């Protein structure tokens, strides 16, 4: 074992498919480099399992640079592990101590059913976007950037909301499995820009309606989502969505 490497005990949720019951299975992992990412540690463990003729652990991952939002792992009671502002692929093993026990579970929500092991079906988010998270325009040549003046303040806020990668950490950490941080970010990014205005009030109604249909819970403003969001999406967006929805229902 080279200098600084660690031995850990992993407890990972194993579940064959959506119909069967799952359980936490213990795996000792040794000689883990502190420079590995959490996902690389899983790759090493999986190679080990394959060599032993066992089924590797299924987990979602894609870009491994914190922008795709696929690596949904609930690590020691927190989405994406103990550090704030990062996804699981950006979590390094130096954040853990030698001898530590690490519990890894999938996102838990009725709207995010487990497909296998740590992989959940997040297509509920896609259906919410399809319900209104877009603008209807005929695309052509890009117009001059200055033809639509936007205040710096609004442009910044819209950009911050647009940083949402749809990873589902907000739903995972919310005690009510509410998707309101996600939906409000997707409502806000368009509500703040001139291009989003024509459909502003139908959008918020349709997206909220779809969110309710998917079986997500209700926001109780605990603020856990904002803390755990890897992109730092603000609770202000939820207030904006509440506001727009009220106006939409009252006047549109």
């Amino acid at each position, binding site marked *: 074992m080279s200098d600084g490497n660690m031995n850990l005990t992993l407890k990972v949720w194993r579940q064959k498919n959506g119909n069967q019951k799952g359980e936490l299975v213990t795996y000792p992992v040794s000689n883990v480099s502190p420079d590995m990412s959490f996902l690389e540690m899983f790759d090493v463990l999986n190679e080990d399992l394959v060599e032993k003729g066992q089924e590797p652990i299924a987990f979602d991952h894609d870009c491994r640079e914190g922008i795709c939002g696929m690596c949904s792992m609930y690590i020691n009671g927190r989405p994406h592990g103990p550090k704030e502002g990062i996804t699981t692929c950006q979590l390094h093993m130096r954040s853990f101590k030698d001898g530590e026990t690490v519990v890894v*579970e999938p996102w838990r*929500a009725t709207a995010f059913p487990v497909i296998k092991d740590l992989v959940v079906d997040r297509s509920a988010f896609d259906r919410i976007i399809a319900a209104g998270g877009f603008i209807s325009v005929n695309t052509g040549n890009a117009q001059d950037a200055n033809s639509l003046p936007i205040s710096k303040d609004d442009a910044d806020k819209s950009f911050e909301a647009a940083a949402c990668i749809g990873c589902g950490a907000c739903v995972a950490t919310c*005690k009510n*499995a509410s998707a309101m941080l996600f939906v409000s970010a997707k409502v806000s990014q368009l509500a703040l820009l001139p291009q989003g205005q024509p459909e502003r009030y139908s959008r918020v*109604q349709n997206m909220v309606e779809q969110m309710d249909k998917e079986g*997500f*819970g209700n926001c109780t403003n605990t*603020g856990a989502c904002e803390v755990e969001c890897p992109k730092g999406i603000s609770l202000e967006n939820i207030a904006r969505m509440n506001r727009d929805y009220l106006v939409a229902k009252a006047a549109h």
Partner: protein
Amino acid sequence: MSSSSSFFTSSLGRKFVMGITGIFLITFLIVHVGVNAMIFLDSSGELFNTAAHFMGTNWLIRSMEIVLFAGIILHIVQSIVLTRRNQAARPEGYAVSASAVNSKWYSRSMGLLGTLILMFLIVHLCHFWVEARFGIWGGIPEGVEAGTHDMFAQMKVIFSNPIVVAVYVLAMVSLSYHLMHGFQSAFQSLGLNHYKYTPAIKAIGKWYSIIVPVLFALMPLYVHFVINK
């Protein structure tokens, strides 16, 4: 209206109702604590009884009493519906949860705190409101002139029991934590979040959640330990 779904059965609509009834109940508490505070100004209880008499006979206040009960019932009914939906949204919980690092315990315990407040409210209404309105619980207490609603005398009798005093004080601890989250949360649910005003709302909410329950809790303590001595 581009969508057919009803505002009041939607998730956001129900949150709105929770928020607006919450703020209404918060304003009620100001009136209630104001009337209560009369006993600190005049320990003979005359001023308090005058205020209580006004509250019990003024037609506007009596009409608001109906709105108040409606507000309390709406707040409770919505919370039950929302809680059941929230539980259905995550039937299988986590083996490990580190929620303490990302949120305050009282913000996650509003249902429990609210239930404790409701239990207290039932006891409290039996002690004073039912007695004043209907006089059915053992009739007029000893030392009270027949034909008057001597709330002050009623209070002296009720708060002579140290267990009752303890229950009232503990209930105010629940109320304090419920308000600590509820005050600012109500504004957020109504969509009132603004970088200029939200810090002030949060600060006022924090002070309100401490000052109002403390004033309420001082009342049974004052009656038990000072006035009744």
